[in-house]
């Protein structure tokens, strides 16, 4: 009898909180809502130390926080969420930690494919962004399978950056641009009419900004409107350097597993404050 009362009370409480949150989001939506928010998930290990947990537990707590934040973002109407899950620099960490994170990623990626996962609940399209060749075979294949399985979803998008650094992304984009131009020039050289070819060669010789952008891993999404880095560190750590040129940077002191609704609301309010300036710039350019 008491158990069912507890359960009922729990459900009622949960529904009330959810109702208040949805109301809060309605109020926020009176102003502009960011289209794309990026997160640097910093502070899992410090969280584990703080609560005397094993280091792996910190990452697991971080995963739970990620699920909540994703849910809040999609409920609010943010279409794109990008997360810095694993940097190429993180391969330098202790092998046991790297292995633990890889195993956890494999487990969570396989979880994404399940019926009740957040991906299906919110119609989320999944992209794994980065130099995927650097990952283990099984993690890479699971990632590719997940991307394929969710490819018909279109309500929202999650971009998971693994084996990623921005400088690696730019180098890769430069390589691809060069190879594309080279192929173009070759094909022009093979054609018949020499005069026209010479002109076209001169024009197409030049690599433009648009060429580089096209070949970026992150080319599937617009630039982020807000970049959130938790744990109070204020640096980019080689994340989205190109894409955050005009994005709002927000660095709350909370460690990643401690991130909550209030941080998201604060970030959105700040975004709404500077929105008129950003719009003016966008119209001018």
């Amino acid at each position, binding site marked *: 009898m008491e158990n069912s009362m507890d359960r009922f009370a729990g459900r009622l409480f949960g529904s009330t909180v959810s109702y208040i949150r949805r109301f809060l989001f309605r109020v926020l939506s009176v102003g502009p809502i960011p289209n794309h928010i990026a997160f640097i998930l910093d502070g899992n290990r410090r969280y584990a130390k703080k609560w005397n947990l094993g280091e792996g537990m910190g990452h697991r707590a971080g995963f739970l926080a990620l699920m909540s934040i994703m849910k809040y973002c999609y409920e609010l109407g943010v279409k794109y969420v990008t997360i810095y899950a694993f940097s190429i620099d993180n391969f330098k960490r202790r092998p046991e930690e790297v292995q633990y994170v890889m195993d956890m990623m494999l487990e969570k990626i396989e979880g994404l494919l399940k019926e009740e996962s957040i991906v299906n609940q919110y119609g989320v399209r999944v992209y794994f962004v980065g130099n995927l060749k650097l990952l283990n075979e099984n993690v890479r294949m699971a990632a590719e399978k997940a991307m394929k399985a969710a490819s018909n979803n279109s309500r929202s998008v999650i971009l998971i950056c693994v084996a990623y650094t921005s400088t690696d992304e730019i180098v890769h984009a430069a390589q691809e641009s060069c190879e594309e131009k080279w192929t173009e020039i070759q094909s022009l050289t093979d054609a018949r009419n020499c005069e026209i070819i010479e002109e076209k060669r001169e024009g197409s010789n030049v690599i433009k900004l648009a060429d*580089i952008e096209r070949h970026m891993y992150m080319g599937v999404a617009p630039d982020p409107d807000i970049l959130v880095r938790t744990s109070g560190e204020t640096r980019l750590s080689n994340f989205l350097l190109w894409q955050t040129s005009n994005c709002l940077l927000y660095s709350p002191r909370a460690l990643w597993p401690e991130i909550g609704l209030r941080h998201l609301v604060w970030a959105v309010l700040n975004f709404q404050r500077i929105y008129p300036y950003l719009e003016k710039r966008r119209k001018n350019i």
Partner: protein
Amino acid sequence: MGSNGPIIACFSGLASLLKLRLAATSNADGGKYPGGLKRELMPKHVAIIMDGNRRWAKNRGLPVQLGHKAGEEVMKRIAIKCSQLGVKVLTVFAFSTENWLRPQEEVGFLMKLFEQVIQTDFNELTRHDMQISIIGDKSRLPKSLQSLITTAEESSKSNKGMRLFVALNYSGRYDITQATKKIASKVRDGILSAQDIDEGSFDQHLETSQIDFPNPDLLIRTSGELRLSNFMLWQLAYTELLFVQKLFPEFNEGDLLEAFRSFQQRQRRYGGV
């Protein structure tokens, strides 16, 4: 954010003041490194986004041009202070590729101001043995300014002191794009193969190449805005970012020391341990 916020801020403010006083008394380099700064933790390369000149002028009911003039004075003082503190490289964001969209009179005034700065302020800066370079797309600047730049760079080339980079008609995306074009030309001419392009290739072709500390350790942006505004994007990969509320003309040497103190307390891990 919570109601404890101000109280906590108060306590941590008092705590850091106390720490500074203790540090100052025990600092052997007291004279050169005031206020508890440690020599070994000084940033080698500092970058500054000098934001807030126009707002400063508007707040005082002055024309925007006077805001820029006030900013010019501050830039000079800050450059000299950095040089005295042993900073090896200072990069300042004077004019972005996107600033051409500002009103024509303001842009015209700024171009004239830059010429004046080169003719007068740079003399004072080179007397502090600074080596001055202008980074950015110089081809779009007025011809008179371009020739002044060439002369100033030539005459300070052999100085051995702090390197001062003034970013004029510069942006991070412009820098990466021009480096890519240079790399692409080398690929086209067979000097380099596309497969050999790596991060080192970019380090060598960006406008901040050829120096010992091309990447800033610390970026300071004044006026409280929390964004990079397309400044040095590649080079800022691991830079500690510091956002200061004050408008640039209000930024003084004390604020600079405070910024360095804040920098010295940060823990940089570069993604590893």
